[in-house]
């Protein structure tokens, strides 16, 4: 079927920040409580148009991440719904204790939007990469962690976050991705989406890597290997029943994510599998500080390419027979 259908790799690509800012403006228009909070990250978050439309409602605290998150918590105390928008590396690294104490533990209605996560900053290097954010934030109680895969899911997750009461972290990618979902996609918290059915092996992914996992499944199909692809936008709370079903029904699970290969989506899946239905799991991620290279180069370098993911799946299937 991949012969007649256009491969996902050949579809047009989109920067999820465009969907982010468009949706945020739409939400802000409908609800006066919504405000943006930034650490001078207006340009990098593409929020210039938002600032123009809502000049009083874009709070720029300057280059001060701890203050940015504390201020957001205080804004929420005053009845606002702050969307903190900052490079994920600085938001989660610099303000981790504020995220823990002022947002999660205080249970304030703050939405943390980690922009340009993973290795999106490419050649700027590991100081600007945010591969640890998922693992750090997954360890914090009372904090939902969402990693959308395309502009449609980014917009849907934002709408869900605005309507829900409580702390949420959403990763917003800058690396362009093809659309994975139809326009009528509705985000459901904690639910995996079977984007491709299959029963030989399971690929679980999210964010910028999901389309690569789909492309890997296309490749495997030409070899007669039927790969199930689960999109897992919610890393926390995890859809454990979908994971257990995959462990039970297929030869093994490959997880693939643009994040450190311990403690993120792969870690969450492995914890579930080990405790509920032991099965073979291969975790693909970024195991170390990345060398110099563009974002695309680095994903390929660490095996997060369609070829790399397909190879890992093939090894699981072969070992299983």
């Amino acid at each position, binding site marked *: 079927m991949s012969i007649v259908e256009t491969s996902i790799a050949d579809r047009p690509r989109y920067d999820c920040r465009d969907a982010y800012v468009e949706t945020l403006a739409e939400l802000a228009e409908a609800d006066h409580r919504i405000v943006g909070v930034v650490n001078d990250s207006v340009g990098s978050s593409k929020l210039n148009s938002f600032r123009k439309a809502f000049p009083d409602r874009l709070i720029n605290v300057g280059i001060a991440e701890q203050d940015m998150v504390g201020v957001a918590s205080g804004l929420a105390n005053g009845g606002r719904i702050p969307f903190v928008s900052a490079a994920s590396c600085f938001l989660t690294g610099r303000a981790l204790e504020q995220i823990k104490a*002022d947002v999660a533990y*205080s249970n304030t209605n703050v939405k943390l939007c980690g922009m340009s996560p993973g290795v999106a900053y490419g050649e700027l290097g590991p100081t600007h990469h945010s591969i640890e954010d998922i693992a750090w934030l997954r360890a914090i109680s009372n904090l939902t962690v969402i990693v959308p895969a395309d502009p449609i899911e980014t917009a849907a997750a934002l709408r869900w976050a605005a309507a829900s009461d409580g702390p949420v972290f959403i990763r917003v990618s800058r690396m362009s991705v093809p659309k994975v979902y139809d326009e009528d996609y509705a985000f459901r918290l904690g639910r995996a989406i079977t984007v491709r059915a299959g029963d030989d092996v399971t690929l679980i992914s999210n964010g910028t890597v999901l389309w690569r996992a789909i492309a890997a499944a296309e490749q495997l199909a030409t070899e007669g290997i039927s790969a199930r692809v689960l999109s897992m936008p919610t890393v926390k709370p995890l859809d454990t029943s979908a994971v257990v079903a995959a462990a039970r029904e297929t030869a093994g699970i490959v997880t693939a994510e643009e994040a450190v290969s311990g403690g993120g989506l792969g870690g969450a899946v492995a914890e579930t599998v080990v405790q509920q239905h032991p099965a073979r799991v291969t975790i693909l991620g970024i195991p170390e500080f990345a060398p110099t290279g563009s974002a695309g180069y680095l994903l390929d370098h660490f095996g997060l390419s369609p070829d790399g993911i397909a190879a890992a799946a093939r090894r699981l299937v072969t070992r299983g027979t």
Partner: protein
Amino acid sequence: MTLTVEHTTMPVLGRLPIHSSRAEQVAHIAEAARQIRIQDLKLVHYAGAGHIGGDFSAIDILATLYGAVLDITPDSVTDPERDRFILSKGHVAGALYTTLAAFGFLPVDDLATFLKPLSALNGHPNRRKVAGVEANTGPLGHGLPVAVGHALSAKLDVSLRRTYVLVGDGELQEGSNWEAMMAASQYQLDRLTVIVDRNRLQQGATTKETNDLDPLPDKAAAFGFAVVEVNGHDHGELLDVLSAVPFRPGKPTFVIAHTHKGHPISFMSNNVAWHHRVPDVAEFQQALTELEAVAPGYTKELGMTERSEGIIKHSLPRVSSAPGAKRGRG
């Protein structure tokens, strides 16, 4: 020793009617502060833990805020238009709980659960468990940014509600405070008041020996605040200053409240050993005797008796940011 409900004997004092005279208000705050100290002493002694030094340096400020300044009552703890008080130095949670009980926000009997397993009264305050607590603090340098955020929300709402935050002086060594002060100034949050519990002691030494904050008034003024210095144990001064903010339109206020850790207990006051030491039976009895010897509502005995040389430059409030300006004027 175990803390039991027999040790929670504090009367609920509540607020005086709004038309009460200043003298009546000051006497009421003084009595509240005395009762809060007696109760807090029992909490720390019988629970066997707490931060009594910092509790006692902050209690006069807390009693003044809850007794006569904050527009908040036990019935309005969820009213969006209430004034907000954020205790940034969260380790003096015992003082906050006792103050909340004194003014009817928390049942006095609940104090008997202080630090016990599964109690709402943790060693640091939790807004999800205790009505009246605005932010979960404990790690230092968190309250001031949160207060700035709340003050911003009030400004966006074009609301007159005020925001007060109490920070320790040692706590100001955390850089997040200065980030927040820059933002407060940039956004002209003149209904935000930062109160510094300037007891000049941190966990193990003086602030001067550790990472000196002085010249603190000049630093705060340089960060765009109207700066006022008060005797942090003088209820009249505290009442006058805390109810008169803002002092400058467009400027947040920075109140340096000069205090002593452990005040006014003879053997605790200004003694670094009492950061989190627990009074033994003899010390407990002596402290209790000293507090009970004070006539109810009598503020002078609780005044600062051992001011260190050079600490109090201005016994009356002054506005440092604009020399010669009169307090309380726009």
